[in-house]
């Protein structure tokens, strides 16, 4: 409580010193900077600070200085609402919030005030997909993105009509499998012919593989980790089942190729895109190390990218006008640590997040 009061007092001082909107460009950075979820928010604040300082040093944006206004809400929706009410009158843009619940609570305020909001970490699917928040964008893939990618890949790329879904009954595996099932049913171009869980660690999976053979699917989607997948893939090869096998990030692991060996060839797996070799990623990490002396925390790169995206959009639009910036965000591609990104009409990032990989000659190769 003490912390909250302190931060409220602090905020009041900040508000007193608030700048008139026209002289500077103000970016509000509400997020979780204290409490048990602080580690999710602080890296974003550091990222915004790095980018803003760099831009200011090189002459600012549209000739104006950028000012950032951090606001701590500890991932609590009620504090997020307070933060939003305070920030709304004085900012041009928002980068935040950290958590989905807090983001949702605050978004109503930003929406009414026509403030473009980019979150680096709120992954709740509905925030964008529902279409309720036209001012909302994010630089992170939503919870459902991976399942969606798997299903669209199976239906559009592999032309699947019959899809079997097998999972390992665990939180992760069954969760992913259920999302995939929902997407297939919503899509309507393919049917789910089998949806079953297996027991991880069982000595033999020939019965379930026999069942897969009987329903004869075009694609098998696997929800779970790689050890069971390796066993199932081996049995499918032996029983001459030709269906393509698609796993998620729980399967995309070098150990899978090592254990399944030649049976792994041709298996598909979705997973986060590897960005560690991108020039901007390396640069951003170095800046962080030089300035704050720490390694990147959670959502640092997403926060960095969100800031770059908004700055680039303002430059392209030539103003901070809501409609113009929004248009720039969805039409121009910007080079960021997480990829060459832009946003789709709903506000989800294109060009980052998950990619589909296929095992070729013992390696995961990205499928274009």
């Amino acid at each position, binding site marked *: 409580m003490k912390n909250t009061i302190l931060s409220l007092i602090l905020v009041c001082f900040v508000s007193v010193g608030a700048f008139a909107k026209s002289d500077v460009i103000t970016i509000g950075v509400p997020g979780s900077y204290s409490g048990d979820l602080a580690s999710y928010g602080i890296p974003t604040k550091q990222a915004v600070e790095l980018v803003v300082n760099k831009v200011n040093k090189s002459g600012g944006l549209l000739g104006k200085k950028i000012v950032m206004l951090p606001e701590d809400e500890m991932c609590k929706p009620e504090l997020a609402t307070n933060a939003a009410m305070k920030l709304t009158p004085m900012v041009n843009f928002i980068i935040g919030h950290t958590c989905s619940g807090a983001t949702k609570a605050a978004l109503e305020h930003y929406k009414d005030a026509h403030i473009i909001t980019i979150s680096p970490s709120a992954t709740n699917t509905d925030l964008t997909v529902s279409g309720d928040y036209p001012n909302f964008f994010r630089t992170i893939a939503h919870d459902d993105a991976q399942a969606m990618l798997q299903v669209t890949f199976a239906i559009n790329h592999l032309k699947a009509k019959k899809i079997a879904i097998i999972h390992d*009954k665990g939180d992760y595996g069954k969760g992913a499998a259920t999302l995939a099932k929902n997407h297939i049913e919503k899509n309507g171009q393919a049917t789910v012919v089998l949806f*079953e*869980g*297996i*027991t991880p*660690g*069982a*000595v*033999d999976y*020939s*019965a*379930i593989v*026999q*069942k897969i053979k*009987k329903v004869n699917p075009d694609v098998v989607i696997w929800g779970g980790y*790689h*050890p069971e997948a*390796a*066993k199932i893939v*081996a049995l499918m090869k*032996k*029983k*001459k089942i030709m269906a393509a096998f698609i796993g998620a990030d729980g399967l995309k692991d070098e*150990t899978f190729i*090592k*254990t*399944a*060996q030649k049976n792994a060839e041709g298996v598909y797996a979705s997973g986060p895109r590897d960005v560690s070799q991108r020039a901007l990623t390396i640069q951003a990490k170095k800046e962080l190390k030089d300035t704050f002396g720490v390694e990147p925390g959670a959502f640092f790169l997403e926060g960095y990218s969100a800031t770059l995206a908004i700055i680039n959009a303002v430059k392209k639009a030539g103003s901070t006008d809501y409609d113009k910036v929004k248009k720039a965000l969805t039409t121009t591609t910007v080079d960021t640590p997480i990829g060459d990104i832009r946003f789709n009409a709903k506000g989800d990032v294109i060009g980052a997040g998950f990619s589909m990989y296929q095992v070729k000659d013992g390696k995961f190769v990205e499928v274009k």
Partner: protein
Amino acid sequence: MEYFLELLLSGLIRGSIYALIALGYTMVYGIIELINFAHGEIYMISAFIALIFASVLNAYGLNSLATFAIASSLAIVYAAAYGFTLEKLAYKPLRNAPRLSPLISAIGLSIVLQNYVMLAQTSSFVPFPNLIPDFAFLNSISHILFPSEFLILVITTIVMIILTIVIKYTKIGKAMRAVAQDRMMAMLLGININYIISVTFIIGSCLAAIGGVLIASHIGQINFFIGFIAGIKAFTAAVLGGIGNIPGAVLGSIILGCTESFATGYVSSDYEDVFAFAILVLLLIFRPEGILGKKRDQKV
């Protein structure tokens, strides 16, 4: 119909896998009435030993049949040594203690061995090379019965027959049964019970090693935890068939394997374990001694 036969076959194979491990369980229980929870760990350790020797032999360029023979023999020798030592270390000092004490000791051993392998080797799955050669006469049905499965079926049957003969008709078998019936009386009659119990553990561990090598080649990957799950299922099968009874262990395993296979095939694999254990509970309500188990009079 074909689907039914395929499910039956996969049930038989799963059953034989359980049986290979269940035989060791049931044998030790039959002689000294101890549920040797470390049995699954011996199975796991022998798979690791076979893997290590197979990798070494492979590096020297031996052909797969010779590698298989040497690696599995060495695994059996090591497992026998483990079984012998474990009994001396963990069970012998507790031989006259209440029955719960050796049971706790067995569970403790199981945990120790698991963690030992996890630390000495790795916690992730490692690939197990396919040591079993392709048999030419299986080529026509290789899509329904793999060489490894064929070998598991055959070896389980052979092991069961040999064990039954040893226990029923040899001198050492007679001594084992005597120890099982009344340890004190056997001792008075001049049977060296320490020797008999050691032999029992050595045979049980050899069985676990045979299971370890065959099953690991069949599944193709091992880690430190495989002994636990396989052990629990095999133990269930041994109880189902009547613990202490050797043909019973095989029968129980096959019933368990087929139940799981048909449950997966005709209902849903989500309920595979539910069916397996429902059968166990039902059977134990009506026949507490298991399918082939003999009713024993309570010793007072």
